[in-house]
């Protein structure tokens, strides 16, 4: 069943643009704070530990593990009725950051907390790529 609602897509901001540019190029980019070394996601103008503005972008492989997940039998909003069952997940990267995503190319019954996953670059159009995940 397709949805009559317009699918919500991210609109990058000046601060977050490099993250989305990275995804469009098939690359996961994360920020790291230079003074304190903390990795940062989602992107910010200041480090959420020391509030430094001295932050650089780095390319990472994006491989991580499922920290938690849920499978929804009801769409979380009508916009996602064509995605049910939604395989929502939180992925933790070795850099210590977590991100919200959805899992693809995996059977519902195979999803486990702790399973290794890798990025799946889902290009919605020329301007927007979402970072989904699939089993390694």
């Amino acid at each position: 069943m397709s949805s009559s609602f317009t699918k919500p897509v991210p609109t990058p901001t000046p601060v977050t643009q490099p993250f989305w540019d990275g995804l469009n190029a098939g690359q996961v980019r994360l920020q790291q704070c230079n003074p304190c070394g903390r990795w940062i996601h989602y992107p910010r103008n200041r480090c959420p530990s020391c509030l430094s503005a001295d932050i650089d972008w780095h390319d990472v492989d994006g491989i991580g593990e499922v920290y938690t997940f849920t499978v929804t039998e009801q769409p979380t909003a009508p916009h996602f009725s064509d995605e049910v069952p939604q395989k929502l997940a939180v992925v933790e990267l070795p850099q210590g950051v977590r991100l919200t995503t959805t899992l693809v190319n995996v059977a519902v019954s195979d999803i486990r907390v702790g399973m290794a996953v890798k990025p799946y670059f889902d290009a919605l159009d020329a301007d927007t790529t979402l970072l989904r995940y699939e089993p390694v």
Partner: protein
Amino acid sequence: MGLSGKAAIVGFAEYQHERKYVGERKFYTEQWAELTALACADAGLLPDQIDGLVCSDIREAGMFVPATIAEYLGKPVNFAERVDLGGATAVGMVWRAAAAIELGICDVVVCALPGLPIPSNPIPQPVNEARYFQSSSASWGSPQAEFEIPYGNLAQNCGYAMIAQRYGAEYGYDPVAMAKLVVDQRSNGAKNPNAAFYNKPVTIDDVLNSKLIADPLRMLEIVMPVAGGGALILANEEVAKQCNHRPVRVAGFGEHLTIKTPTYAQDMVRTPVGPASAQAFAMAGFGAGDMDMAQIYDCYTITVLLTLEDAGFCGKGEGMAYLRDNDLTINGALPINTHGGQLSMGQAGGSGGMTQVVEAARQIMGRADDRQLAKHDLSYVSGTGGVMSEQSALILRGA
């Protein structure tokens, strides 16, 4: 640190909670006026004694909400607060009111959270698709608009389900224990005429066979939207002595906020209610073991489980066994949600947490009728906003 415990809840009002409301629809200002009148009459106070108010959002205004309410009630106030803590709002209202009273800037404070439907607008309104995103902000620049909503991580069910799933991976998950919590609460709620599920107890099998909504959460573990709402009046010690009921003193409180989206919680299964409750107990000079009852915010079963653990009613990882091994009804050693909780009342918009505070007051005052506890001097109350992102706790005691 903190309150001396001299400010007290002296009266309350609570709408009957109904799944299919057929009564008169009222704007939030109108419900504010009605609830305030009812709560004043309950306390035995004259409306003109009100000199403070604590509100949350109203449907009729996005800004200047306290002034709008003061004007509508015709009550000039020395103290006005707007609390924006989701389901933790009611608890947050109570301590703010008590603090203002102890500061001496006001004597009588009304707190209300309306939750009845408003009248239908005769002018058709355009459909706003973003309203389905509920508490996730779709505004440009909002982290949720960019990193949550496009993936469908919005509303409450999936966030709480992911917390429950993580809990299960760390400590083990027992669907039967969670079902028993629902059964015990619904047993309490069956004795509460204000509850949407009055006289409607359920069995373990009813819960386990209810529809899976977001794995592992099932329909009967999730609050049902209803019409309702409630209000409280707090007063200083002198005024409280003149009121109709045993004063319910605000002996301690705590509040702790961490994140908006659980993805970014430092630890998804160690929740902000821990530090909030520790502060509340320390301020009041009591521990979890001293409580006669616990009115625990229960948007979902997992919320109650984590609150029992993090507030110290049992050890970390022991919550499932606690639910299995203890009678949580009004007959148990520590009754939980003696009104049946929101799992029995239903959740009336942003007013769900008010039911927990009202019930604690009702029990301590000795006015809980068929479900009145024999020992009813001390209550723990919790509030939970967002997806366990902002939580608050109260210790209420009889005078």
